[in-house]
């Protein structure tokens, strides 16, 4: 399970203030907590913060890098911003592994971001949507995912650096989508050997729901069974992380022992 930490996001007030006021201790305390919980990649989303976003990305990347050498995922819905920010962060921190989060399967979008990933040795998350928006059907998701995968590989991105995100919508507004996302993962995983990674912005499934933690945890386990091997999630949510590891034990991805959670933590050095 590749855990992308969702916590360094300007949508959170503490992070927003941390970025705006350049309080690196606030950010670093959160990073330490996420890494201690099992985060493998630190996702950075600026949210509604002040100032030049490229500078904010570079500042955050440096601040995070001071406390961990985990890869950094630059998260924005604006392709132009990512196309400018990724090379700058790569220049500032040439040893840091980066992931672009994210790129749609719309041709102009892919043409903009995939070469940036290739040039900076970054991973890239491909959304299974194109210029027409988020698909409702499984078929369209698979079509977009396959188009992204093929284009990324043609541009020399190794398959282990490619993440497909089939886009989960909140269960309270789109009740058919959780099942469709799982089916899309299954079909895409079968079509490619070795398969790319499959990732979700997990918390989206429970947006504006009352039982957020329970929904996140339940859906994560269901998706792992379908082939999901990465998620943008709260690594400090112990129940969530432990449910994911338990699911992977059931799928024979880890050899069982009575202390399998401790074993998983030992192997990560946390």
């Amino acid at each position, binding site marked *: 399970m590749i855990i992308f930490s969702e916590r360094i996001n300007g949508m959170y007030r503490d992070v927003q203030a941390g970025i705006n006021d350049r309080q690196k201790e606030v950010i670093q305390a959160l990073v330490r907590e996420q890494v201690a919980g099992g985060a493998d990649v630190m996702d950075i989303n600026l949210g509604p913060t002040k100032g030049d976003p490229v500078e904010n990305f570079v500042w955050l990347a440096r601040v995070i890098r001071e406390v961990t050498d985990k890869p950094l995922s630059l998260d924005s819905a604006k392709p132009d911003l990512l196309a400018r920010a990724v090379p700058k962060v790569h220049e500032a921190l040439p040893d840091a592994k980066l992931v672009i989060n994210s790129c749609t399967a719309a041709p102009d979008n892919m043409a903009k971001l995939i070469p940036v990933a290739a040039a900076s040795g970054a991973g890239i998350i491909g959304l299974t949507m194109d210029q027409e928006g988020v698909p409702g059907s499984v078929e369209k998701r698979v079509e977009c995912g396959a188009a992204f995968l093929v284009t990324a590989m043609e541009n020399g991105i190794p398959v282990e650096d490619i993440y497909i995100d089939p886009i989960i919508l909140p269960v309270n507004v789109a009740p058919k989508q959780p099942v469709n996302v799982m089916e899309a993962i299954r079909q895409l995983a079968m079509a490619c050997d070795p398969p790319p990674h499959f990732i979700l912005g997990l918390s989206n499934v429970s947006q504006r729901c009352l039982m957020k933690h329970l929904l996140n945890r339940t859906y994560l386990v269901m998706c792992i069974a379908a082939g999901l091997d990465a998620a943008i999630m709260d690594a400090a949510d112990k129940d969530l992380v432990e449910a994911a590891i338990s699911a992977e034990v059931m799928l024979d991805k*880890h*050899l*069982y*022992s*009575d*202390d399998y959670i*401790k*074993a998983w933590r*030992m*192997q990560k050095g946390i």
Partner: protein
Amino acid sequence: MPVPDAKEKWSARVNPVTLGATKETGGTRGRTVTIGGASGIPFLGFDGETPHRPAIALDVWDKEPTGWPKPLEDAYGDVWSDPAAWARRVAELGADLVNLRLVGTHPDEGDFPAQRAVDTVKAVLAACDLPLIVWGCEVPAKDQQVMPKVAEAAQGENCLLGGAAEAEYRTITAAAQAYGHKLIAMSPCDINKAKQVNILVSDMGFPLTDIVIFPSTAALGYGMEYIYSILERGRLAALSGDRLMAQPVILDVGYEAWRVKEARSSDDLAPAWGPVAWRGPAWEAVTATDLLQGGADLLILRHPKAVEAVRNTIHQLVGGPTP
């Protein structure tokens, strides 16, 4: 039709573990023996490398065995009342290590005191310069008295001590750690327990890289395939990056093979099975060579003819200079 490429890409390897210490490293052994280190499926040269060939340890007891069948008596009967002489014999037979069992410390087998065990270990260390494996009697209360003393007496020799089990691992682990020895982690034919014991031992601060797994052993015809599948699963987990299963494996083939009736029944009891002088060693050798394929790194054997056959097999599988 082209031959498909069956090569696997593995992300990790079995830990190499070095046993024994020469003068340069603070001991008195003539040489050290390194086991493990494989980066692929056993003996598939195209899959990964086998940097250290499987090693062979020969049994030496601290008291004269009772009930050993004639082929073993013929090989050791003249020396087995004296552990030092027995150790010299196994060195002459080409063992890589001496496997010393403190059977006599068992409450029902003589109940030797710790001091006698210490004297035996010292005598064996003085008698030959091979690296040493030392097992207690597997009665926890007694091993807790004996093994720390033994570990202390052999300080500097980098022995392999047996062993830590889920129910009782603290004393032996602390002793191995305090006096610089490697440790056998024992589990009864259960791969989940094998991992669990490693977690427990490692949780005490003992390095995972100083552990050798003993998953128990079974002879040909008596459940050997269970051990074989445990070896396979353990090796695959190790190669896939599970650091808690990356330890090399020791198997007690001699003990198990010579317990079964096919190996030990005398010629008059089983005339149709062929002479026991060949049958017994053959049973031991076949058990050993089968288990080597599953991923065994250190074999404890008994009969000289079995040693010869297993050595030849290893040579054919790994190559290198003629044994």
